[in-house]
C-alpha cells in the first residue's frame, strides 16, 4: 500500500533523508521510530504530498506522491504533531469545514461530521468550541478530521505526544479498530511501547537512513533473548547464589545493585521455574525474581547509539 524506494531529501544545510526504502502492506501498521532529527517527519510529509523529495520514488495506494498528488489527496488522511483544528470553532463546525473542502455537499458534510463525532465519543462535545477540549479530545477530533473521506491510508506523526496514559490507550484502541477495518497506518513515534502495541513492522531511522527493520519480536530477538533477574535478599548470599546459578547458565553481576544478578533464560519461563527451584533447594532467600524480555528501548538504544 505504501512503497518507498531510495527516498532523499535535503534541506539547506542538512540531509534529512539519505535514501530510505520502505514497504507497508495493505491493512498493516508500520511504526517509524527514531530520535529527533532522524527524518521521521520528513518522510511522512513527503508521503502525505506536503513535501517534494529530491530523489527516489514513493507510491501510496498505487499513486505517485509527486505526479498524482492531486488524486492521492482524496485517499490519504494526515494527523500531524499538533491537533490541526480551529480552536474557536466547535468540533462539529471543524469537521463540517474540512468535509466541505473534500467537496461533500452541505447535507453530506453535516451527516459525516455527526457520524465521526459519534464514533470518537465527541457527540456531546461537538457543540462546544475546541478551545474548551482536553488534549485527548483534541487528538480525537484531529483524527476524525483526517478520516472524513475514509482514506485507505492514514499517516500519523507522533499521534500521542503529550497525552495522558488513559487518552493514549483510548487513541490506540481507536487506531486498532481502524486497522481492523482495513486501514493501512504509518505512524511515527518516539514511544517504543507505542510501536510495540500497534505496529506489525517497525522501521528504525537514524540520521536519514534505515538502521533496522522488522517486527517488534524480530528486533527484540536481534538484541538478545530473555533473561532472569535475581535480587538476593542479603549481599552475603550472592557468592553462594552464583554457584547455584552457574548450573543453569552464566550469571552476570548487575552493575546497578551488588545484590542483583542476571542469567540468560534460554527456555523462557521454564528457566525461571528451574532457577527458582534450585535457589529454594539451596535455601538462599530471594527478594525478587523476574523474567525479563528485551524491550524495544534496548533495541532502540543499541541501534541509535
Amino acid at each position, binding site marked *: 500500500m505504501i512503497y518507498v524506494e531510495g527516498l532523499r531529501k535535503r*534541506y539547506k544545510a542538512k540531509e534529512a533523508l539519505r535514501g530510505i526504502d520502505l514497504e507497508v502492506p495493505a491493512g498493516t501498521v508500520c511504526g517509524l521510530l527514531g530520535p529527533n532529527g532522524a527524518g521521521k517527519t520528513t518522510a511522512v510529509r513527503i508521503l*502525505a*504530498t*506536503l*513535501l*517534494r523529495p529530491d530523489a527516489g520514488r514513493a507510491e501510496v495506494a498505487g499513486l505517485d506522491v509527486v*505526479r498524482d*498528488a*492531486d*488524486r492521492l*489527496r*482524496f485517499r*490519504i488522511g*494526515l494527523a*500531524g*504533531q*499538533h*491537533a*490541526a*483544528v*480551529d*480552536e*474557536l*470553532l466547535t468540533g462539529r*463546525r471543524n469537521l463540517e*469545514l*474540512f468535509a*466541505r*473542502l*473534500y*467537496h461533500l455537499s452541505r447535507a453530506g458534510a453535516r451527516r459525516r461530521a455527526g457520524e465521526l463525532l459519534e464514533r470518537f465519543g465527541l457527540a456531546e462535545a461537538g457543540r462546544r*468550541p475546541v478551545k474548551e477540549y482536553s488534549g485527548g479530545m483534541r487528538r480525537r477530533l484531529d483524527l476524525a*478530521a483526517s478520516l472524513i473521506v475514509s482514506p485507505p491510508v492514514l499517516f500519523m506523526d507522533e499521534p500521542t505526544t503529550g497525552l495522558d496514559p488513559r487518552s493514549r490507550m483510548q487513541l490506540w484502541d481507536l487506531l486498532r479498530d481502524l486497522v481492523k477495518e482495513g486501514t493501512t497506518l504509518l505512524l511515527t513515534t518516539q514511544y517504543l511501547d507505542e510501536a510495540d502495541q500497534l505496529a506489525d513492522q517497525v522501521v528504525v531511522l537514524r540520521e536519514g537512513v534505515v538502521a533496522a527493520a522488522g517486527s517488534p519480536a524480530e528486533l527484540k530477538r536481534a538484541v538478545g533473548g530473555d533473561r532472569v533477574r535475581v535480587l538476593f535478599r542479603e549481599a552475603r548470599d550472592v557468592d553462594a547464589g552464583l554457584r547455584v546459578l552457574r548450573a543453569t547458565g552464566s550469571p552476570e553481576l548487575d552493575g546497578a545493585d551488588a545484590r542483583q544478578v542476571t542469567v540468560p533464560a534460554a527456555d523462557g519461563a521454564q528457566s525461571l521455574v528451574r532457577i527458582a527451584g534450585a535457589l529454594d533447594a539451596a535455601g538462599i532467600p530471594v527478594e525478587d525474581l523476574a523474567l525479563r524480555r528485551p524491550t524495544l528501548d534496548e533495541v532502540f538504544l543499541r541501534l541509535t547509539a
Partner: protein
Amino acid sequence: MTKPSFDTLRWTVLDSLTIAGRTYSRQAAQPGEILAFLVFPVIMTVLFGYVFGSAITLPNGGDYRDYLMPGIFMQVMAMTATAAATAVGEDMARGIIDRFRAQPIARSAVLVGRSVADLSMHLLSLAAMVLAGILLAGWRAHGSLGATAAAFGLLVLFGFAMIWVGTYIGLWVQSGAQADAATFGWLFPMTFLANTFVPIEGLPAWLKPVADWNPMSAVVAATRELFGNPTSVSSAWPLRHPVAASVLWSVAIIVVFVPLSVNRYRSTSR
C-alpha cells in the same frame, strides 16, 4: 498536475467560499473582538482629532480634523496586514495550513478565500471609523458622490493589497506572535512617516522623500483630494498625481504579493 479547466475554476471559487465561511464563523465566535474593532476608531479619532489637533495648524489653512480623517481611514486599511499575518501565522503554527495542503483543495483557494473574507471584515471597521469621524470630528466628504465612492474604492483596493503583504509574511513565521512582531514593528511607524497625521511640508529635508514616496501618502492624498478635504502640497510625482499613484502602488503590491504568497503556500517546507 492537471490542467486548469472549468471544473478547477469552479472548485477554486467554491473552496474559497468555504474558507471565507470559516473566517466569518471565527468572528461570530468572538464577539468581543468585534467590539474592540468598534471602540478603536473612537479612541483614534478623539486622540488625534482633539489631542494632537489642538496643537497642529495646517500651513495651507483648513480644519485639521477634516485633514486627519482620510489619514486614519488609510491607517485602518494598512493595518489589515498585521491581522492577516497573525491569522496565517497561527494557522501555520497549528498545522492547519498543512491539513489544508494535504486535502484536495484548489491551490489558491485557502489564501484567496481568507483575503476576501478579511477584506469584508475590515470594511466593517472602516465603516465604524467613518461613522466616528462624522459624529465625533465633524468630518464630511465635500466631493461629488462619484468622487466619494472612488475614494472609498481606493481605500478598499489598498486594504486588499496590504492583506496580501501580511499573508506573505504570515507564511514565513512560526507563530501568530512572531507574525505580529514581523508586521506591526515596521508597518505602524510607516503609517506615521507619511502625510497621514501631519503636513508633509514641515518634515526635515532628509525625511521628506521617504514620506513623498511612501505608498500610504499617495493613498491619503488621493482620498483627501476626492473627499474635498484639505491636503498637503508636495512637488513629488506621486503626490502631484495621487489617484494614479495609489492605484499603481496597490496594483503593484497585489501583482507581486499574490503570486509570491500562493507559491510560498504550495511549497512551505518545514
